Every structure is written in C-alpha cells, then in structure tokens.
C-alpha cells in the first residue's frame, strides 16, 4: 500500500539554488479566473469528465493535452493560468500530480453557473 508522505502537496524542484513549489491556492484561483468567462456549463462538465478520466489513470500526458487544448485560446482570460502552467509543467510524482490536477478540476467546477458568477 502506498503511503503518502506528509506535506507532499508541494511539488518541489530545485533549479540552481532556487526552490520552486506549486502553490495550489494560486493555481485554483487562476483556473477559476480563466474559466469563469466560459459560459457553457455542459462544455465545462465534459472537460472535467475527461480530465478526471486522465487523472484516474495517472496519465499526465493526456491530462495536459486535454487541458492545454482547452485553454489554447487567444483570450486574455487564460493568461494567468498559462503562466502558472509554464512554471510548473513537468513530469511530477503521482502524489504531487494528483493534488495539482484536482486543484485545477475543482477550480473549473467552481465556475459552473449553478453558483456565483
């Protein structure tokens, strides 16, 4: 059985002397800001469904493919999310990837029109 090490929600990598970590909070925020202008809930629901399938299989390549395709639009909305992804895009250990992926998914889900705009 796999034991999740404590505080593993930070994926840390060290480049030179600088330590990089994923700020899940900012990632979720950026996702929400990006998707809140997408009006179609059923589109977002389908996207979430596809992303969930990819995470389930720990298929990081597929996950990023679906995600990048979805945000590959010339709108300003996605600028922040692009920046975040550029910073962090890398092959991650499963534990870090799960937290990373679900932060994005829950972020998209927060923008369904059933709730606040």
């Amino acid at each position: 059985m796999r034991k999740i090490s404590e505080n593993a929600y930070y994926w840390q990598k060290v480049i030179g002397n600088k330590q990089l970590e994923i700020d899940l909070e900012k990632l979720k925020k950026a996702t929400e800001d990006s998707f809140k202008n997408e009006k179609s809930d059923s589109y977002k629901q389908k996207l979430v469904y596809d992303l969930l399938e990819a995470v389930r299989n720990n298929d990081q390549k597929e996950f990023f493919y679906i995600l990048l395709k979805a945000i590959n639009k010339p709108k300003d909305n996605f600028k922040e999310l692009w920046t975040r992804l550029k910073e962090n895009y890398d092959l991650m250990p499963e534990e870090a990837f799960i937290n990373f992926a679900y932060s994005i998914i829950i972020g998209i889900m927060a923008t369904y029109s059933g709730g606040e705009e």
Partner: protein
Amino acid sequence: MSSEYETIMNEQKLHFALKFTGNWFFDVGILGFVNLMEGVYGWDLKTLQEKINEDKEKVYYGYFPFAYFYKWLLDRNEKANSKLIENLKEELEKKKFKDNKDLFDFVWFNFICRLFKELWIRKKSELVHKSEAYTRGGREKQVKKQYNYKNTEIYLKKIEERENLINKILRKHKDEIKKILKVEKELGKLEYKYLEQLLKSNDDSISLELKELIELLRERHEEINKFLNEEWENNVINQQKFTRDEDLFYRIPIDSGFYKNFLFFNNSLGNLEQKDSFYNAICFNFDKEEMLKKIDKPINKFLPSENEFSNINYTELSTKEFKSQIEYLFVYLLCFTYAFEKYENLGYVTFYSNDLEFSYIINKKLKLYKKKIEKSKDQNIILRVTWQQVIDSLVEYKSSWSLENMYIISYKRLDNQTQENIEYIGIPKLQASILLDDTIRYNLNNRIQFRSKNFENNFCWLLEEFIKGKPLYPIILNHINLVLNEETSLKINPSIYSLIIDAKILELRSRNKGKSLFSTDFFDTYKSLVGEIKKDLIYSSFSAGLVKGIFRDDDTKRRIARELFGALKEKNKNIFLNILLKNMNENKELCSNENFNRWIFDKIIKNDTSYEMYGLLLIMNLLRGEKN
C-alpha cells in the same frame, strides 16, 4: 504590626499544609494518613487540614497514635470500643499539656492501653497450661518474661486452678467432650481454642454432670479475666505504676505481617518500650531508634533491604535529609498500607497522582464502585472505572498536570518475595488538555460498535482509546463499515468529534515536526488546539453536510458512500477524489457552492496529512441523509 504577624502565621500554616512531596512512596503514606484519620474520626481532607492548622501536635501526637491502634484492631476483627473516640475528642479539646511527650503519654495510657484491655486480657488468659509459662531447659525453671511481674504467683495459681479443673473434666468426660468439640483425635493438652469452644457450649444434650463442671470452669475462667482486668486497670491505665522489669508482661499485643519487627510491633518490646519507640518515630528521634536512620525494608516491604542491595547508590537512604522537609515522615510511612483498598479479585489497590486532593477524591470515588469492580471479570476494570472517575472529576478539578502523572499501584500480598505491580495510567498532556473541554469529553465518553456482533468485544469506549493515545480514526472507519453493511446504526456526534480531533492532532504533529519539544509556545499550542477543534467542528460539520444534496435518491448516495469507502480503505486519494468529483460533476449547484467547493479543496485536495478523516466525514454524511 498585626499584618506582619498575620503574614508570619499564614506562612507557618502553609508550611504545615498537608501536601504531596513528589515522592510517590511518601505521598502514598500521606494519603494513607488522611484515610486513617477519616476512617476513625470522620474528618475529610479539609477538616483534617483545619485540625492540623489549629494544633498539629494534637493531631500527630494525640489523635494519630490512637487512630493507628484503633484501626489495627478493626482490621483484625477485634473489638474496639468506639466510645473511646468521642471521649478522646472531648479530652483533647479541653485538656492542656506541658509538651508533646506529655500529650502522647496521656493518650497512650488513657486511651491506647484502655483500647487494648480486652485483647490483652485474652492473650494472657490464653495460657491454658501453667507449665508453658516457664522457659524450657536450664537447671532452674524460670518464668518467661511475658508472664513475669510482681503478682506472677497469683496469676499462675489461677491458671493452675483452671488447668486442674480442665484436666478433671477431660478425665471424666473425654468422649462427650470430643463430641462437643467435634474432634476425632485424642485430646492431650487442651488448646485454648477448644477451651473457648467448651466455655461457649450450651447444648441440651450435654449431661447434667458435665454441665455443672463446665459452669464451674466458666467461673474459674471469669475469675482469671476479672483478676487480669483489675491488674490492667490499676497498674496500667490508672496509675502506670509498673517497673521496667514488668514491661513485657504489660506489652500491648500488636504485631504486623507488613512491618514484622519494626518499632512497637517487635515482640521483645514491653509496654513502655513500645510507647517510647512509637513516640520516637513520630518526633523523628533517631538517636534512640537506630532503624529509623535509613529507609529500607523494615520500614516498608516495597523497599529492598540494605543487605540485599549492595549498590551504594541505593543503600543507606538516610532519613536525616528529610527531617527538615517532612516533619512527620514516619507517621506517613507507618500509614502506607492505609492508602490501599482491598479488592477480592485484585488485591490491594490505590490510585496515585502527584496531587493529594486529586488522589484523595479519586480514591474515595473508587470505593463507591468496589462491589462493581469485585464482581467484574474484565481484567481492565480497575483502569476503566478509575478513568471514568478521573474524567468525571475533571469538571471540578481542572488540573491537567495531575492527569499526566497517574498510577494504579497494587499488590497481592507482601511477603519476603515482595510482590508489586505499579501500572502507569497517565493521560498524556495533549489528550488531557483536550479532555478538559466539557463538550468534547461528553462526546468521546461513548461506547461505539466497531466489530460485527459475532465478536465478543464488539464495542469500544472511545475515551479509553483516546486516553491511551491511540488514533480514533480506525475505530470510526470500522464503525462506518458496519453502518454500510447495515449491522448497526450510525453514532453521529461521537464519530464527528473523533474524526475532527484525530485530524487536528495529526495536523499539530505534522506542524511541530522538527520543532524542539519545549518551544516557547508549548503550552499555548495545546490551549489553542481545543479552539481549533471546536472551530473546525462547526465549519466541517456544516460544509461536509452539504454533500447530502449530491443526489436525492438514498440508494444512489449509499452506492457512492460504498465506493468512496473502498477507496479510503485502500488509502487511495486519487480514486477517492475521482469518484467524488465525478458524481459531483452532475450536480452543478453543489460544484459551485463556494463553501463546499472550498472545503473539498482545503480539507481533501490540499491536505495530505488528514484527508482520510475528512473523507470519512463525507461518507458519514452521505449515509446520514437516509430516512432511517
């Protein structure tokens, strides 16, 4: 001026306050002292403290010695004249004494010796055969010291008269007597127990002639008792006019399996010597009592003897050092055994914490459950009942330091192979500080089913597990499993409390990892933990409760709960979140509910330390929405 005087007086009072020393061995003695005084005079701890403040010498040199001897008689089912207690109180209230020696002597002769009159008479009357009063061997027959005094001749003559009569009766009515005494063997020399039996016999079947003889024997016997009674009254109680040579004749017949030959228990000490050694022990006079100089086996069977223990560091634990600190050390050491309560199934047991009042209260409460404890077949019953009492007392007694140092001390019997069992039952500081909260304690004080009915012990007392420092999550996990299988009904509040407490403790530990043990916020951390738990209880109960709206249909919710449970059991966070979010995805309103969305993110996605507890909380809420 007066205020200065008052301060000094108060300081003095404080100095004599009964309190624990930190050494369990002395402390148990202090507890025994308190128990003894309460048992005999009915004073509770507070009253005893007041009496000590009023006049400590009267307590230690007057009330204590009498109580000690009184209790000794009671413990051995001997008659003890309870009227003497009231008389003693009256006398000590009104009488003035020159010094503590004067006080002690007064109590010794007028009360202790009076108290032991009947037992002393019986012991002296137990001499059935005159010949046994003499030492064996040697050219000249000498009267043994314990029978030798100024009126020995008269005494032995009376014994002889009774003996002759006994022999006469035995000769004439041997068979009938054997029948009365229900013995098969030949009666050679009649033992005292048979004599007593004979004196008490009053059967119609006894022949007239024998009846008359027994009546005559009774008269002789009474004569001896009357004679001895007068000797004791005249020479001991009223005038104390016996010489040191006669000391042993008037010895107070007291002994002890626990203290063996210690001080006044020693068989070779006469009445006056017993008195002196008792007095010396109270006032710490080890010039005369060599054995008081060190603390070892003679003082208490829990200790090794100096000979057995050759290690220099542990031997010759000198009492000298304690003289200034614990004024009445030997009083307490003598009372050691009175701290223990005897249970048929467990032996002698006492509860000890490092606070006198707390130990006193808990022990008192434990006595109320004595019957229940004795009846129980549960090996851990004493721990359970003790903890229950400790927990119940928490409300009135908010001392988390005491909770950390708690022990159950017990012994089956003490002989030369000293047997002891000391069980540490302390509640860790972290757990104790959480338990100080009334609501938390109330909710953990529950028995919850965690195993299928086929198992013998299928219920678990949450509080006990918590006190032992064990995690509650596995128990709740099993409980929810039973709920899923419809084997039991959901215990909501105890489960929620257990999960949140476990989560917060885990988070605290994870935060403090690597920090030094006694950091500056050591105490504050514990205090704020309770606040955190309560805050999260409100937040998480509400937020996790929203999951109930995921579907309307109870069966669907149960199906999801089952799937989530499987993932949690396998500790698979990925699958857990996948199942949860996939099902959520169909309910747009729930997905975008800011509270719920945020809660899932904070407590599960972002959280690798305690997400399992919160996950289980979600499952619980899915099951909770059901009609039944």
